[in-house]
């Protein structure tokens, strides 16, 4: 049965290992925003993050921000599709100690293995609901690698961020894959009813 958790970031390995696919998570605290170019810059161009990501959640962000003086303000912050980020994820988890990846659409096998090995999860956000996400971001605390904006490294502070569905857990369960398996099992009957066989 699915459980609902209210957590505070950064996360310990113990807390993350308690989570199971299908659980719902909300959390308060720091959240790092990353995406394609951020990770190309870190991993391919050899620029380590200038801040510790140990225990942190990282979101595949699509940020619309404006800079007023020295301060970054949110306009609309949404989430982008995760599948493009697969290549970098084992490194984020293994090398930098990230404990939660937040995105939509899920990741693949190598990420799942890293999550099992080091104790991390993938949390699925509701796509298309940027209005809610923006509301739950209290502040854009810091922008690192600012020259990469809108693909920089962002430190947001969030309040009651969610609902997030645990879609890949540290026990090797991949919820999207599980649903895909169920869909495949149902398809022959659906084809038969539709008369397309």
């Amino acid at each position, binding site marked *: 049965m*699915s459980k609902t958790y209210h957590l505070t970031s950064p996360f310990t390995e113990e807390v993350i290992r308690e989570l199971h696919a*299908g659980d*719902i998570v909300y959390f308060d605290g720091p959240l790092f925003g990353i995406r394609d170019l951020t990770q190309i810059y870190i991993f391919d161009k050899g620029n380590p993050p200038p801040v510790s990501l140990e225990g942190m959640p990282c979101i595949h962000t*699509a*940020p*619309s921000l404006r800079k007023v003086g020295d301060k970054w303000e949110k*306009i*609309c*912050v*949404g989430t982008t*599709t995760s599948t493009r980020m697969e290549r970098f994820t084992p490194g984020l988890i293994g090398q930098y100690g990230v404990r939660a990846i937040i995105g*939509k*659409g*899920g990741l693949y096998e190598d990420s799942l293995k890293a999550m099992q090995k080091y104790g991390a999860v993938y949390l*699925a956000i*509701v*796509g*298309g*609901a*940027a*209005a*809610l*996400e*923006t*509301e739950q971001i209290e502040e854009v605390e810091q922008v690192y690698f600012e020259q990469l904006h*809108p693909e920089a490294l962002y430190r947001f502070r969030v309040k009651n961020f*969610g*609902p997030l*569905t645990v*879609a890949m857990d540290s026990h090797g369960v991949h*919820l*999207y894959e*599980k*649903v*895909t398996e*169920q*869909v495949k099992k*149902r*398809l022959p*009957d*659906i*084809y038969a*009813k*539709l*008369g*397309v066989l």
Partner: protein
Amino acid sequence: MATFDYSIVEEAAKQLYIRALCNLPPDVREALKKAYARETQPTARSIFEAMFKAIEIADTKKTLLCQDTGLPIYKVRIGSSFDWNGAKIKAALYEGAKRATQEFPFRSSSTHTITRVNPQTSVGPGLPVTYFDFDGESDVLDILMIPKGSGSENMSKMKMFYPQHGIKAVKKFILDTVVESSANPCPPGIIGVGLGGTSDLVMKLAKDAIARPVGQRNPDPMLAEMEVELEEAINATGRGPMGLGGDVSCLAVHIESAYTHITQNPVAVNTQCWPARRARAIIKPSGDVSYGF
């Protein structure tokens, strides 16, 4: 005949883009509520609840529902009993989409297809996508605006079947396309289907299909029946909201069709995400503008 001030069309084109991004149509809200009512899985229900909260925040704060501002599409129906100037309308749509982007302001999602340079205007060669149709019975300008997000648009598919494959292959193709697109198009949305025509027309028909209010049936009973049949099939898969499992995998299937070549049997699928955004303006020759969906 009095000269019409086309800055009215430009202003309407701007307002339409903003309205579409911020204010979800009532039929979509209703369809989501009905979907929530029949959803039994707890995870899926919490996803619907987040959608409702996001819609409410976009309403109260007059803000964007989704950060993907999409590619702007304007479908224009020109009433023939007034002397509308098509070239001026087209220019006004271009300027209106650009002004919406720069004056709101919101992110331009439009870019050069090779250099990937985004001039932050939402417009450029070929954009906004504009379609013109004509109505012999009226004197108004009817403009429907759709911002089309990429999560769903990237899942579009078209196939030229042969007549020998019949309707069976077409139905299977539609179902398989939805199954393969999985969580990507932010389900549950509208599955737009085009049948017949040429390769370009069939894709446009699928786009016309997603532009209809949710659940409005095709007037042809044969196609309406097929819509229901496909809706049931898609919802029976259990893919669920955001692809994480559940009873509701689509809000509706809409089909639009045209005659085709005797040797052709084309089908196209264009999906619209759960925030099925659209906005409409009716402009009278007097310059009065009324907004709706």
